């Protein structure tokens, strides 16, 4: 159990691997983002932000235990930030988020 907790705790700092994030429009007014790392490890606990066109944070949160993050689709253009630490940030622009 302790090992598991430790593992979960350390996942966001798995800096040796490439961070990955992919989002899709669920068609019900919400956007679902999934995250992880190139070695297959989970992105649970990774900091998530949604910025509007001006760069202002409109939604903030963390990847849940299933390595997913859901938010209400904002009006206009926006960018999703998957922030797994310095040098391990993925930006997903709304133009790439499709149904």
């Amino acid at each position, binding site marked *: 159990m302790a090992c598991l907790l430790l593992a979960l705790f350390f996942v966001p700092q798995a800096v040796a691997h*490439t961070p*990955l*994030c*992919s989002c*899709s429009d669920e068609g019900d007014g919400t956007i679902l983002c*999934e*995250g*992880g*790392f*190139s*070695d*297959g490890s989970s992105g649970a606990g990774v900091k998530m932000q949604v910025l509007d066109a001006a760069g202002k944070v409109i939604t903030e949160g963390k990847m849940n235990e299933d390595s997913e993050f859901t938010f209400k689709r904002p009006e206009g253009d926006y960018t999703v930030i998957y922030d797994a630490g310095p040098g391990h940030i993925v930006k997903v622009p709304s133009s790439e988020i*499709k149904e």
Partner: protein
Amino acid sequence: MKMKKLVLLLSLVVAFALSGPAYAHFQMIYSPDSVPKSNKIDLKLVFTHPFEAGHTMDIGKDEKGNIHPPIAFGEMHKGKQKDLLKDLKSISFTSLTNSGKAYEAKVKLKGMGDHIFYFVPAPYYEGSEDIYIQHCTKVIFNVAGAPTDWDTPVGDPLPVEIVPLDKPYALWTGNVFRGVVTCKGEPVPDAEIEVEYLNHDVEGNAFVKEAKVEAPHDALVTQTIKADKNGIFAFGIPRAGWWGFAALGAGGDLKHNGKELSQDAVIWVQALDMK
């Protein structure tokens, strides 16, 4: 006497003309990109001779000419299987020499990671060999680079399958592709594997006429390699594009309608150029 000789000669000529080169059959599950640009893709399921874009068979045709429906078609993602049999639509696919009964499926790749599509057709009767052939086929698409399923066996409903040891969608031209030939989860020692290059692009429900390469001789149209005692094979990929691997008779000694059944395990992998 002279007449008899002539008849013999003529029959020989006719036999040769009819037999033609014995290029390999390959069941394809085709879409242009193993890492698709859109999450909605169109799969073409065609039983053909991919190097030559040659004779395309009617999937599931028995010796009486009756067509039997596919046995299994599905998707595995994050360890979960989804039955997609009902999403198969019958199409006619045109090769350079004929048209054959094939299928298509419009599918959505939902979620980051690997999406394995697998297909088990009803056995096809090959008259020239008087045997049935069944190609249990799989292909792997990836979304957003996350590795989730590519090295996991699909298992049931695939009786035989090739389990990759290298990501089938992350190959540069010149890389080696390795796989394990398995039957009901166990390696098949010394398996014989036919390898063919998809030498013609697919446009709509047809092969385009133009070939990408020309083979200097027949042994390079269908290459044959062998697995080792652990069922493992390796193949250096010489050119970008789709490559098919068919492990012949991976299912062992089987019969269908009283005839020999060659139950083969097929996988398709795609290499891309470094540029």
